[in-house]
């Protein structure tokens, strides 16, 4: 047995038995003037054991496994792109490789700045397929005090080409969207969302597989009381 094969066998074996799931939490704290704070956290600590095994391999199920340095470089690219985007400041990236929790934090002067940042990322990573063709992801109309999140990120029929094993990972992942306001919420369009007891925050939890498949999305139009 070649040493490389042995090495692969030793570290691939646990992958067959370990569980994998993750959470993505998007937070928007929106001020009355349309500025605010944005946080995106990817928490993969529930898959920690599996990820440690995967990091020792070149590829898993046909997907190249990035090395820590590559992940760090990608996140730094994201931070650099954010810093260059007009209206975005105080960009912070947190990388916890022991627990596999990664987060992105920034302040924005206007939700359009976030839209520009997402469009920039789409361009540099050719991610049109995964981040649909919409260019307006966040919207706030000060006059009507209406916040809109366009959260339809389905890849359509391409989902049926995704390998079953990958689908299984996606079906164990959740996307949580939290948005907080200074004013009370009057109306929400997405009935799956929950309004906080204080009526100043809305939370929506959606399965990632359903988002990609297109059977669910996290679009929501929230009208605030005046």
């Amino acid at each position, binding site marked *: 047995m070649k040493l490389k094969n042995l090495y692969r066998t030793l570290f691939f074996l646990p992958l067959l*038995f370990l569980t994998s799931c993750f*959470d993505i939490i998007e937070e928007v704290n929106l001020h009355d003037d349309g500025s605010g704070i944005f946080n995106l956290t990817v928490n993969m600590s529930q898959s920690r054991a599996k990820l440690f095994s995967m990091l020792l391999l070149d590829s898993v199920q046909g997907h190249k496994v990035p090395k820590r340095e590559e992940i760090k470089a990608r996140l730094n690219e994201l931070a650099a792109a954010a810093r260059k985007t007009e209206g975005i400041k105080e960009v912070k990236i947190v990388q916890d490789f022991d627990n596999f929790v990664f987060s992105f934090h920034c302040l924005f002067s206007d939700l359009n700045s976030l839209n520009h940042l997402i469009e920039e990322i789409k361009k540099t990573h050719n991610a049109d397929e995964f981040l649909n063709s919409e260019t307006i992801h966040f919207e706030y109309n000060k006059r009507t005090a209406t916040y809109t999140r366009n959260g339809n990120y389905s890849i359509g029929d391409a989902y049926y080409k995704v390998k079953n094993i990958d689908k299984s990972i996606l079906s164990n992942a959740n996307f949580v969207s939290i948005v907080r306001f200074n004013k009370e919420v009057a109306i929400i369009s997405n009935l799956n969302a929950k309004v906080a007891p204080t009526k100043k925050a809305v939370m929506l939890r959606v399965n990632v597989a359903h988002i990609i498949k297109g059977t669910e999305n996290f679009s929501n139009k929230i009208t605030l009381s005046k």
Partner: protein
Amino acid sequence: MKQALKKIMMVLCCYLFLQTSYGIDLQSKIPKTAQYVFTIHGQNILNKMSLEEMGKLSIMNAPFMGDSIKMRIGEFGLNLNATFYFYVEMTDSILYFTYLFPISDVKQFESVIARKGEIKKDAKGNNYVETSSTNLTTWTKDYGAFIIEMVVSEYFTKVPDTYKRYGYKVEEVIDYSNNVMEDAAVDTLATESLEDSLGNDAVDYNYTNTYDDWSIKQKYRDTIGMIWAKQKAIQLFSLPFSESISTNVKFVESQDKTAEGIFWFGSSNSVLSSLMYSMNTPSSLMLKSMVGSALFSDKNYFVASIHCNEKDIKVDVTSTMDPRLTKNYEKMVNAKLNKNFSKYIPSENLLGYYSFAYNTQAVMEETPKLMMPYLDMIPYAKNISSDIIDLYALMIDEEAIGKLFKGDGIFAVTNLVTTEVPYSTYEYDSLYNYTEIKKMKNETFPEFVFMYSTEDVIMTEKILGMFYKTGLCVKKEEGYYESSLYSGSPFKLYLLQKEGIVFICNTQQQLEIILKGKVEKGLSKEHLKRLKVNTANVFVDIKKILERFPNMTEENRKMDMLTYGRKNVEILNFTQSKPKGNTIKSEMVLNIPKGNDNSVKYLFNMINDLYLLSK
């Protein structure tokens, strides 16, 4: 001479026996040029599971089954108690996949086949139906054949002579002049008949537009393929015995009457040269170099016989190598597994193992000799092949490597261990602000040990010491090395060298067994015997693995499959024995659970149950 006479007598006896006992012997309809033959003994299967029992299976009425399958299988007019064959013939230009089937009621058969297309007569008066543009069914009153043809596209686009003849513009002119192996007779006939078949479409053989005429080219290829397939059908009915595979003593010997199925592969140079046309990659260079090589002479074969017994399914595999290379191979496998390995393998929760016993020094010394024929065939290496071998011998110290890794080893999965691992999640307050909290969850992972023998203890310690000095592991007082590989990783590897064995394991429990040097309950005598006598062994206790596999509560279908597997699979064993002469024998045995009448019913019922579970 004596040997030749013996062979002739044997073939004659086989032929006479088959003729008298079965009437029509379909084996004699298989041309001796067939490279792959799969035999199904219908009677052996039906003795274990009747047609009525098969007909009751839900899968027989599944939507993906054609209408003809949905009918009762017995109503096809086939003689299901006889022997069926499937064989593959390959040439440089076309592949034929042929199913040979015996017919018991030709009227019944014709009533079924007539639904697939118009029944026509060929030049010799035989019936046939073109069931699609690439396949046809032909028959007489006693037997029939279903022929699928697959034209090798490269033959028409890459070979200069052919592309000119069929009017294709060559994309890349490659000199195949030394390798072209055309079947001139068939090819000529195809060219003559092409215009008749294509009618008005076949006008200009000098057509050179290579982009827009894809569909016309496709039509040319399909038409030529069908013409050749029809010729193949005619040849089949009038094949002289001397041209049949029944004259191949090794093939006839391989046809075990007690087996349910037999797969036979006769390696020959023509197979390799046929494959050359479908590949034009660096690997095909190696393939081309193997044409004519000593390793793949016409005398070699590979046979796998499937026996569906009462308690198990057994596959006996026999393969041969060129007698000139037997001694080299014998040296490579002249090794025994270190008997002390078994001292460190607890049998109580054993899930599986893979063992191997080779002689590393002999492998290092003999491999270049085995590679010589390959090197001689590679254009830029043929003049320097012996120099390459000398350089290799100069650079590699076979004896030193042979001492460091003797060549025997075993990888055993000794348990599935469940342990608690931490993870972080969040708690939300009334404004959906969240705070991180730590929770614990159970993770199951396999406990394993890998061992190999070494004679060079000093060098082994030096290598382990290098890992330690470079920070890849830490050395513990007890003399073993511990490696996390990544900070924070819940997995650890333990490495140590003891009594000429190098150990790699991943749990403290296994490490303690190694340090103690003894297990409470060792391997059974059966395992020990198998490990002692064979070159390679694989043992997998599938039932135990599935029993220990963590339950998947999220997905009901997967959970159902898992539950089904736990009840319906047992142990799998594979052994590869030492060579006897130029023959290597292997055996794979899958035990079936108690409560099954026999393994034919077990297999059919399992396919049916899995189909029902997947619905």
